[in-house]
């Protein structure tokens, strides 16, 4: 087979019966990306401006434009979308334009079956490009969130820890800080919160700051006291140790699942319900993709609309060929009235081609 015939076969796999082939515009407004991912993705996008000042980007992926269009059109669910075409991202290890193909399934009634369908698609693609012995890595966002919920700590820290999931250095730095909090700065120590807020309010007015547009005096006073309280070991050492131990778990299915079970037993938290789903998902990936599956507790995209599991497939060359997962919160974030279960995967066409002809 030539690259062209492989590509034609890939296009055929993508536009299988029941799948709507999506062809969103290449030039799109970047607002949704900034809104969902903040500045970190901004650095990777290729941005430009119209003569009237409107901002545009070259689409950095297909998932968002497809989801936005699905909502805007009031399209019926369940829905299945396929795509194949160029996406654009600034990156150090390759050209800024590259082809991706993929499948997105929205609101399918049976989550297990939907995931199986995505996995079967990924398998067909890796077969097409003769990927031998694929390595599969899986992370589980639900399981991390369950562990975090079970940790004994003030609620204020949970979203902050959640926001660091998927960024090992930032997570380690935060856990270190919770373990050894810095002394709070000199200031109105010993005052009650209302007096501190009053003090802050005066300072804000002196400096000409709005009391409502940005952080409010109450919010600042509250966090100031919280920082002082942290010094008095507000987050128990065993909660920090539990998170560290959990995030360090990484290995083949049986070993990793046993490690999670042991940790739960040792710390007296109940993970059985979520863990049963994790085990089922791992088996789905192993059986569906016929490769080695590694469970990595700390593996996650750093975007909070991902839910459930996330996975990636690497080939002999070590680069990611397929990445996918569940993202039940995305459509609501984009304006849908409720969470819509969603699962999909993207395949990197150029890298797959390199697997055939390294």
């Amino acid at each position: 087979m030539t690259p062209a015939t492989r590509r034609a076969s890939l296009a055929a796999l993508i536009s299988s019966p029941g799948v709507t082939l999506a062809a969103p515009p290449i030039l799109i407004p970047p607002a949704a990306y900034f809104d969902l991912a903040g500045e970190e993705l901004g650095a990777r996008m290729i941005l430009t401006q119209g003569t009237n000042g409107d901002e545009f980007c070259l689409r950095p992926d297909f998932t968002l434009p497809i989801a936005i269009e699905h909502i805007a059109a009031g399209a019926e669910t369940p829905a299945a979308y396929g795509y194949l075409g160029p996406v654009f991202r600034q990156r150090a290890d390759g050209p800024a334009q590259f082809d991706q193909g993929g499948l997105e399934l929205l609101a399918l009634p049976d989550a297990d079956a939907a995931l199986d369908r995505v996995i079967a698609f990924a398998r067909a693609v890796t077969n097409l490009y003769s990927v031998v012995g694929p390595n599969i890595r899986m992370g589980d966002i639900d399981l991390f969130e369950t562990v975090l919920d079970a940790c004994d700590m003030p609620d204020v820290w949970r979203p902050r820890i959640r926001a660091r999931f998927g960024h090992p250095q930032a997570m380690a730095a935060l856990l270190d800080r919770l373990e050894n909090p810095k002394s709070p700065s000199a200031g109105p120590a010993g005052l009650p919160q209302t007096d501190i807020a009053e003090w802050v309010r005066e300072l804000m007015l002196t400096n000409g700051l709005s009391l409502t547009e940005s952080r409010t005096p109450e919010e600042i006073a509250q966090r100031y006291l919280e920082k002082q309280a942290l010094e008095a070991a507000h987050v128990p050492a065993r909660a920090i140790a539990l998170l560290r131990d959990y995030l360090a778990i990484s290995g083949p299915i049986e070993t990793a699942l046993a490690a999670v079970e042991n940790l739960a037993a040792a710390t007296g938290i109940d993970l059985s319900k979520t863990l049963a789903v994790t085990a089922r998902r791992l088996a789905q990936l192993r059986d569906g993709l016929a490769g080695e599956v590694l469970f990595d507790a700390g593996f996650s995209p750093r975007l909070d609309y991902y839910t459930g599991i996330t996975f990636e497939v690497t080939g002999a060359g070590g680069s990611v060929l397929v990445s996918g997962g569940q993202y039940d919160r995305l459509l609501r974030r984009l304006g849908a009235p409720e969470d819509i279960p969603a699962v999909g995967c993207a395949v990197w066409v150029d890298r797959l081609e390199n697997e055939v002809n390294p």
Partner: protein
Amino acid sequence: MSAITLALPSKGRIQEEAIAVFETAGLPIGRPGGARSYLGEMAAMPDVTVRFLSASEIARELIRGTIDIGVTGEDLIHETAESGPAQVEIVKRLGFGRADAVVAVPDSWIDVTHMADLSDVAADFRARHGRWLRVATKFVNLTRRHFACHGIAEYRIVESLGATEAAPASGAADLVVDITSTGSTLKANGLRVLEDGVMLKSESVLTIARNADWHTGKLATLDRLLGVLGASKFP
């Protein structure tokens, strides 16, 4: 062909100080077209063509490799392109044009003294205020790099091309990343630099364009110039 192009800042004190560096080394720079001309000449080394450009243009052209060597601010090399520092080589730090790129928050944010505090505030901000934390700056690349280094992703940059220090009071942003030499402008605007908020200690630097066409003839001229100036060797 052994001629190389040297670019010097086209205005202000950094222009005077840059010219003085060469004069002190025994390489006075003349301006045959008068003080407003954008071309200069180095009588002691006629193989060096001198051009006067704005400091930010010098940074950009050094990165592209369309000029060979120049004097510009280190901050501009970092800011012009994400991979800018890798495209050039600093051969001498010149000790003038000193300025720090810093992260500064309203002084009233008494709970925020370090980048770690800012990462907490950023993580909570959207849930509390329905929008991202906003950072006003003209140093987009530097800011993204520094914030990413501290694991902060939950913010937006508001590009500001002047009077950045006024952005928190005008409501355009919540905090700023700005360049400062003494910190007095920030202080006058009720802003405080975080204790680990210095992103870059910048000064004017003599810099070589790695991407220029460095054939043997040009390298010989460059080598002599760097020798006279007491700069590091290139390559």
